[in-house]
C-alpha cells in the first residue's frame, strides 16, 4: 500500500525519507513541488496528486508536509488517516512534532515508522503498544542508556497486541490512581451582519487521562444522554451497551486518549455566549476607513468569557491601521494583512473595544466586502449544551480511584460576517 514516506519542510527540503518496499527515488517529489508552487498557499496543495507512475498523498501539519507515495488503487482516506496517526504518534512521543525534534530523534522516528507499517500495511498504530515496543526518549532514559548500554527497544511482544483489549498494556501500576475527564464543547457558528445566527452547532469531545492500576472496567453515564445526536467512540467503548442503555462502558487505554466525540442534536437551540458590535466602513472617496468593534458577553450562564481573541483578515487594499484598544494587545501585520487582538478576560461592566482608522491604498477602489471576524474564547466550568456527567464507576479493581470531571466551552470555527 504505502510505498514510501517523505517529510518536507516549509522551505521545500526533504529532510527524511523512509521506504517500505523497494526504494522510490526522491525525484518523485518534484511533482509535489510543482503542485505546491501552483497552489501558492500551503493549505491549498491538493491532498492527492497523480504522477505518471505513482500517486502522492499528503497531509500538512506543524508546517511539515508528510507525503506518502503509493502505486496502486487504495482508499485515499486510508492513507490520509494513517498519516495523521503518524503525526499524532510523533507528537505523543516527542511532545511536539517539528522538524528540529524529528531530526534530533531520527533513530526513534525510524524505529517507530518501521513498527507502524509492514510492507506498507499498518501493523501497530496504538500508541500504547508502540510505546512498549519502542520506549519514548526521556532525558533520564538517555542518560541511563549511555551508562548501562541498555536500549529503547523492547524484546517482548506487547501483551496488548494479542489480547481482546489491544489498546491497553498489561501490568500497569500507579501509586496514585486517578481518572480525569474533560468535557470540551466547541461552538461552530456563522453570525451574519445584523447579529442573527446563520448556522450554529455544538461539537464536543471527552478527552480522558486515565492512570489506573491493573485492568479497570469503567462506566460513565450522563444525566441527559439524549442530547448526543451523533457520536464516535474510541475502540474501547462497548457499542452494544451504549445502544441499549446509553452508558459508556469501557476498559480504558493507559494515559491520554479521546474517549468520545459527539455532535449535539440540531433541534436544540444553540446559546451564543458572545456578541460583537462592529462598525467597519470604507468610503469610496477617501483613503481612510473607519474601524470599530466591541465584544461583549451574552448567554454565558453567569460564567466569564476568557481567552478572547479576535482575528480578522483585512482586504488587500488596507495599507495600515491605527487603532486603540481599551483592553489587551492588538497587532496588525501589514504584509499578511492580518489583524489580531488579544482581549483576554471580559469584564461585563467595562466592555472591551477596539477603535481607529484604516489607511487604504490611494486611488484604489473600496473593497467589496468587509472583513469577517474570527473569534476565539473559552468558558471554564460550562458545557454550553447542558451535557452533564452523572456518575463514573469502576469495576474489576479493588482500590478507590480519584475521579475528576472538568467542563469547558470553546469557540470552534466562530465567524462574524460584517
Amino acid at each position: 500500500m504505502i510505498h514510501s514516506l517523505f517529510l518536507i519542510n516549509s522551505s521545500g527540503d526533504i529532510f527524511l525519507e523512509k521506504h517500505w518496499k523497494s526504494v522510490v527515488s526522491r525525484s518523485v517529489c518534484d511533482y509535489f513541488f510543482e503542485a505546491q508552487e501552483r497552489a501558492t498557499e500551503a493549505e491549498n496543495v491538493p491532498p492527492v496528486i497523480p504522477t505518471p507512475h505513482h500517486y502522492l498523498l499528503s497531509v500538512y501539519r506543524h508546517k511539515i508536509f508528510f507525503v506518502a507515495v503509493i502505486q496502486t488503487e487504495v482508499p485515499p482516506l486510508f492513507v490520509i488517516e494513517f498519516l495523521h496517526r503518524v503525526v499524532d504518534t510523533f507528537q505523543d512521543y516527542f511532545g511536539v512534532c517539528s522538524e528540529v525534534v524529528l531530526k534530533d530523534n531520527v533513530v526513534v522516528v525510524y524505529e517507530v515508522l518501521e513498527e507502524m507499517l509492514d510492507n506498507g500495511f499498518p501493523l501497530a498504530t496504538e500508541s500504547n503498544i508502540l510505546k512498549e515496543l519502542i520506549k519514548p526518549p526521556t532525558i533520564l532514559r538517555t542518560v541511563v542508556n549511555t551508562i548501562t548500554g541498555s536500549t529503547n527497544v523492547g524484546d517482548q511482544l506487547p501483551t496488548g497486541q494479542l489480547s481482546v483489549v489491544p489498546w491497553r498494556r498489561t501490568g500497569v501500576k500507579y501509586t496514585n490512581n486517578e481518572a480525569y475527564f474533560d468535557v470540551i464543547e466547541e461552538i461552530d457558528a456563522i453570525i451574519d451582519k445584523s447579529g442573527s445566527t446563520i448556522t450554529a452547532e455544538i461539537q464536543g469531545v471527552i478527552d480522558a487521562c486515565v492512570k489506573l492500576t491493573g485492568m479497570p472496567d469503567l462506566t460513565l453515564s450522563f444525566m441527559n444522554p439524549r442530547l448526543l445526536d451523533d457520536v464516535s467512540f474510541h475502540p474501547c467503548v462497548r457499542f452494544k451497551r451504549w445502544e441499549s442503555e446509553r452508558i459508556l462502558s469501557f476498559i480504558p487505554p493507559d494515559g491520554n486518549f479521546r474517549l468520545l466525540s459527539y455532535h449535539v442534536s440540531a433541534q436544540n437551540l444553540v446559546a451564543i455566549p458572545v456578541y460583537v458590535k462592529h462598525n467597519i466602513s470604507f468610503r469610496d472617496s477617501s483613503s481612510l476607513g473607519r474601524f470599530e468593534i466591541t465584544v461583549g458577553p451574552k448567554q454565558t450562564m453567569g460564567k466569564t468569557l476568557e481567552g478572547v481573541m479576535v482575528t480578522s483578515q483585512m482586504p488587500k487594499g488596507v495599507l495600515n491601521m491605527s487603532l486603540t484598544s481599551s483592553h489587551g494587545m492588538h497587532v496588525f501585520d501589514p504584509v499578511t494583512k492580518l489583524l489580531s487582538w488579544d482581549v483576554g478576560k471580559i469584564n461585563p461592566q467595562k466592555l472591551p473595544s477596539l477603535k481607529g482608522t484604516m489607511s487604504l491604498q490611494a486611488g484604489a477602489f473600496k473593497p467589496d466586502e468587509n472583513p469577517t471576524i474570527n473569534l476565539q474564547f473559552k468558558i471554564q466550568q460550562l458545557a454550553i449544551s447542558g451535557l452533564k456527567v452523572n456518575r463514573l464507576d469502576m469495576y474489576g479493581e479493588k482500590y478507590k480511584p480519584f475521579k475528576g470531571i472538568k467542563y469547558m466551552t470553546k469557540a470552534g470555527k466562530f465567524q462574524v460576517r460584517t
Partner: protein
Amino acid sequence: MSSNSLGYSEQGGETVSELGQEAVPTTAPSASPAFGLFSSDTKRNEDLKQMLESNKDSAKLDAMKRIVGMIAKGKNESELFPSVVKNVASKNIEIKKLVYVYLMRYAEEQQDLALLSISTFQRALKDPNQLIRASALRVLSSIRVPIIVPIMMLSIKEAAADLSPYVRKNAAHAIQKLYSLDPEQKEMLIEVIEKLLKDKSTLVAGSVVMSFEEVCPDRIDLIHKNYRKLCNLLVDVEEWGQVVIIHMMTRYARTQFVSPWKEDEEYNEKNFYESDEEQKEKNLKGKKPYAMDPDHRLLIRNTKPLLQSRNAAVVMAVAQLYWHVAPKSEIGIVSKSLVRLLRSNREVQYIVLQNIATMSIQRKGLFEPYLKSFYVRSTDPTMIKTLKLEILTNLANEANISTLLREFQTYVKSQDKQFAAATIQAIGRCATNISEVTDTCLNGLVCLLSNRDEIVVAESVVVIKKLLQTQPAHHGEIIKHMAKLLDNITVPVARASILWLIGEYCERVPKIAPDVLRKMAKSFTSEDDLVKLQILNLGAKLYLTNSKQTKFLTQYILNLGKYDQSYDIRDRTRFIRQLIVPNEKSGALSKYAKKIFLAQKPAPLLESPFKDRDHFQLGTLSHTLNTRATGYLELSNWPEVAPDPSVRNVDAIELVFNLEAASIAVTTPAILSPSLVADLEGLNLSSSSVIDVSIPVFVPMKTHELLHRMSGKGLAAHYHFPRQPCIYGDQMVSVQVTLTNTTDEKIENIHIGERKLPSDMRMHEFSPIESLEPEGSITVSMGIDFCDSTQTASLKLCTKDNHFSVNIQPPVGELLLPVIMSERDFKKEKGKLTGMNETSASVTVAPQNSTRLVIVQKVVNVANLGVVPSGEDNIHRFAAKTVHSGSLMLVTVELKEGSTARLIINTEKTVIGSILLRELKPVLSQG
C-alpha cells in the same frame, strides 16, 4: 541549514546541498566543507567501519544510529554493507533491529552479501519468542533477493501454521512481498491465503484479506466459506483491516446477491390507494417478490456500528458499502456520520466532500437536512470552499433556494476571487435547474456586471451568456447592457462571450450590433485570438442579416484576418469569406450560409463536474482523481439471478478447523463482539478482572430424543442445545425442541402441560403451536434453569387429543457458558480454586489425540467451554462459567511424556466438576 538557500529545482546543485548538510554532523570540524567533502566522507566511513567491528556494543550501536540517520536523509550508505551485515546476529536487540532496517534498505543492491544473513533468520524463525519469530519473518520476506524465494515460501508456509496469531499475521503480510518478488509463486501463495482465510483470529483477518486483494482478487470463491465469519469478526478487527475487508465485501456482495434496488423503486411507485388484490396481481405478473438474502442482510447490519468509528477511513468505507450494496431506503443513516467527518482535518474534508458531491447529485434528499453544514467559512482553503459550493448547488431546490441565494451573495463578495467566480457559476447552475428563480438570478448577475473586479464581471458574462442561451426569451435589455461593457472589460473570455451574444441575437439589437462591429474593427489587431474569432463570427452574422450597414465593415475585418499571425484566424477568415461573400467561384454552400451561421444552437448544459464520477466506486482513489488508477477493481453489476447461496454454508466436518464460523451459522445474528458485550453481572459474581461471556467455540449438532414417534402417536420430538445465551433469563439454558408430525393428519394445539420440576428449577415454555401440518416440522426454543445440576426436567407434552410425559436431561457440558480469559487471568483464578475445589485424573491419551486441534475439538464437543490462549504447546486450557450461578469452571489438559495426560478441573461446583471430569476422560483416551 546551509542548503536552505538552494531551491529544489536546481537538480545539479542537489549533491552539493546534500553534502553540505552532511558536513554539519560529521567529525571533520576543521576541514572546510567545500574542500574536504570527499575525504571526510571516506574517512567517516572508515570510522564507522571500525566502530562496527569493535567489540563494544555501545560503539556498534552508535555507528548504527548514525548510519540510520544518514539513510533517513536519503544518503547512500551501501558501501558499509559487509561491516553491517556481520552484526545481524548481535545479542543487543536494538543493534539487531537497526541492522534489520539497514538490510531491508540495501539487500536488493548487495544480493550476494545479503545471503550471509539468511541463516540467522532461519534460526530466529524457530525462536520460542513470538516477537522474534515474527520479526525474523518480516525481515526475511523484505529482503528482495530472488535466490531465496524457495526459503521464503517455506517459511511463510510454516509461519501460517504458527500458534501465535501475531506470527500468522506477519505471514499474511509476507505473502504480498513474495508475490511482488516472484509472481510465479501465485498458485502456492493462494493455497496459503486459503488457509489463512480460515483463521479465526481478528489479528489475522485484515492482513490476509489485504493479501487476497493483492494476489488474487478474482478468486471470490475463496471467500464464500469465510463470508459469515468475516462479517461477524468485523467489529473486532483492527481499524485498518476493517477498511480493507469492507471494500472487499462490497465487491463480493455485488457479485453474489441480487439487487435490492429495483423492487424498491417499484415499491415507491406503487399507488398508495391501490387495493391489495391489484398489488398481488402485479407481484404475480412480475418476478417473485424480492427477499433479501440473509447473508446480504448480515453484512449490512454488521457494518452499521462501524459508522461510529473514530477512523475516517472506516466511516467512509461503510458509507460506500451502504451506497453500493444496501437498499436505497437504508442509505440515509450514513449521511450523519459523513457530515461528522467534516469537522476533521483539511485533507479528510477534501476527500469526504468529494464523495458527498457525487452522492448528492443522485440523492439530494440524503444531505438536505445538513445544508447548513456546507456553508462556507472565510477561513476554509479554496479547494474546500469550491467543493462545499458544489454540494450546496447540488442540494438547491425550490424550498431552500432563497436562503441559498442569500448565502451566495456573501460568497460573491469574497476576497478569494477564484471562489467568487465559482459562486457565479453556481448561481448560473441554480438558475437553470430551478426555473422559479431564473429571473432573479439573471438580475443578480446583471448587477454583478457593474462590479469592479474584472474576474467577477468576466465570469458573470460567461454565465449570463449560457443562461440567455437556455432562456431564449426577450432579453434585449441585458444584451444592450453587456454591449456597453465592451468598452471597459478586458478579460478575453468575457469579451468573446459578449460578441457571441450580440452576433447570435443580432436581430434583437439591430441598432447596436453594427456599432459594436465598428468599434471592434478598430481594435481588431490588438485583441486576443479568442476575441478575434468572435469578431469574425459577429461580422459574418451581421453580413448575412444586415448586409446593407455592415458589408464594408465585414470585408475590412476579413482583410485584417487574412494577414493575421495566427493560422486559426487566417483559416477562419478564408472559410467565412468563401461562405458569405458571393463570387463566381462560390459553391452551392453559400446559399445555405444563413442557415449555417444562424442555426438554432442547443443550449449548453450547466451541470456538475461530479456528474460522471459515479461510475467509480465511492471512496476510492480513482473516484478522487476521476481517472482509473492502476489496480482499480471495477464494481460489477448486480447479477440477474443470485448465485447459489448455499456455498456460504459451513458444514460440520469443517467445523474442526473453522470453529468460529460454525458458531456463527447457528447463533442469532447481530452478535457484537464478545469483548464489547461485557457482562458486568458476571464480573461481580466472580470478582475476577475480566470475564466476558464469549460466543461458543463449537456447537455440536447432536440431538436427543424427547419423544419417539411410536410412543407419541405420530408426533416426534427431539431437542438439542444451541449453546446460545438464553433470551428468557440469564440463568437459563436454552433448549431447542424440534417437533415433527409423522402422521397424515394435522396435529393441533401442541403445548406444554403439567410439569414436574425439582424445587428451584424454572422453565420458560414455548408458546403453543396451533397446528402442525402432516410431514411438517417446527423448531421452538425454550429456556430451562437447571440450577447447575443434572436433574431431569419432567414435563407433559400435550396435543389437542393426547398428552405424553417426557424428560429433558442436560449433559453436564451444556450447563456452562464459555468465557474469554487471558492465560494470566486463568492462572490467577486457578490459584484461588485449589484444594477442595480441584479434581484431577490421569488419562492415557490415544496417540491421534495429542495435537492441539484434536484436543480442542474433542473437549468443546463434550462441554461448552471457551478456549484460553496458551503459550505452551503441551498445556491446553479451557474456561467457562456455570449458567445458573456463574461459578468458574476451569479445565486444564496437561500432556505428559509418553501418552499420559493430566486432566484438572477447578471449580467451586465440585459435583459438576467431577461429573465433567468423568465425561472428559473417555473422550481423550478413545480414538
